[in-house]
């Protein structure tokens, strides 16, 4: 479950182009597909999205989808099942967290945009967007999608796909 090899970085072609004029105007657009599964007992997966540096350290958690509505916050007891995220970031966070945690999602494509404000603290460089899904009475999967931040003009999406618990994932840094 190591990081995939970085695909050719499209950004390289525009290396001489001007940097975004206003630092802080850039967004990160992310598409995450939760596959429809034909299983006897289905529960929506818990999903965490975070930004990982080259040393695999978690730079920032962007989103955590879990059941925060159960009595006594019982839904939080399964956050640890997103094992990689839990060790790298989750266990040191307080949840629910404004702008980060939200309810679980139904199968289908989720289109997300993380604003410049949400990307605060992400220094220019190469990163992975990591998506981890863990499903009750189901499996767990981690998918990594490399991207460069901040976006260079004309940067195209980086894509990857899960096999069992996650579908297609694309990351598009926007200037």
């Amino acid at each position: 479950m190591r990081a995939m090899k970085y695909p050719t970085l499209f950004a390289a072609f525009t290396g001489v182009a001007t940097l975004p004029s206003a630092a802080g105007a850039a967004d990160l657009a992310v598409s995450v597909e939760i596959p429809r599964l034909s299983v006897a007992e289905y529960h929506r997966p818990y999903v965490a999205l975070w930004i990982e540096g080259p040393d695999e350290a978690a730079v920032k958690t962007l989103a955590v989808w879990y059941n925060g509505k159960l009595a006594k916050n019982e839904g939080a007891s399964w956050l640890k099942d997103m094992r990689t995220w839990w060790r790298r970031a989750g266990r040191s966070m307080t949840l629910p967290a404004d702008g980060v945690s939200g309810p679980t999602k139904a199968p289908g494509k989720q289109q997300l945009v993380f604003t410049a404000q949400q990307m605060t603290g992400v220094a220019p460089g190469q990163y992975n967007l990591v998506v981890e899904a863990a499903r009750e009475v189901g499996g767990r999967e981690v998918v990594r999608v490399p991207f460069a931040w901040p976006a260079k003009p004309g940067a195209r999406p980086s894509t990857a796909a899960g096999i069992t618990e996650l579908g297609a994932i694309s990351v598009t840094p926007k200037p």
Partner: protein
Amino acid sequence: MSIAIRTAIAAVIALALAPAAQAHRSWLAPSATVLSGAEPWVTVDGAISNTLFYPDHVAMRLDGLKAVGPDGAPVPIQNGSTGKYRSTFDLQLKTPGTYKISNASDGMSASYKLGGETRRWRGSATDFATAIPKEATEVQASSNSRRVETFVTSGAPSTGALKVTGKGLELEPISHPNDLVVSEKARFKLLADGKPAAGVEVEVVLGATRYRAKGQEFKVKTGADGVFEVTWPEPGMYWIEASARGQDPSGMARNFGYAATFEVLPD
């Protein structure tokens, strides 16, 4: 050679080999070591058996059982019960952080001669003074300290519960015992009565061997500083064990035993 003598020799050999060849292992097995959410519970099994972690020999006695919380203060053991093959108890992790669960015992044993006969005695240190008759000769006494531990963490790992007592053989974690993954080597320090236990062999055994042709078992040795390093061959629940001999300040022999259970997660 008569059968009686042969049997006697076999018995002596068996006794000498006993600790290595037929090690009954004392263990504590927690239902989970990494927990999230508010005030989670863990349930723990305690037993003595050969195969880890299957209780099939004798239940662990819960007399010496203690748990300490993230602030180093005692935490109540709840719903303790002892069955035929295992004991079981619960622990609620009311505050986030790491908890240490340990079952420690201290005792003494002695042998002496009285009227030409060799006698043996076993008991507590407080009883020792009065237990050996005044007329006894060739008194050889030793104190025995054993400790069995495990660790569980709610939320982020902490170190407040990991402080050693300075008594018996103990583990001073360098790697956090609830932050072990298969891709990272783990380092721990072994202390005997608070001092580095140098050159001690530590046995590392992977549990859940029932469905394997061959179990994972190996030994590592502590350095002069008492530190040993473990490379985990695969994820799973591991048991480590070490024993050592020493002397107390009065020169009396000390026998030390330490065992602990660690969970090693996949990456």
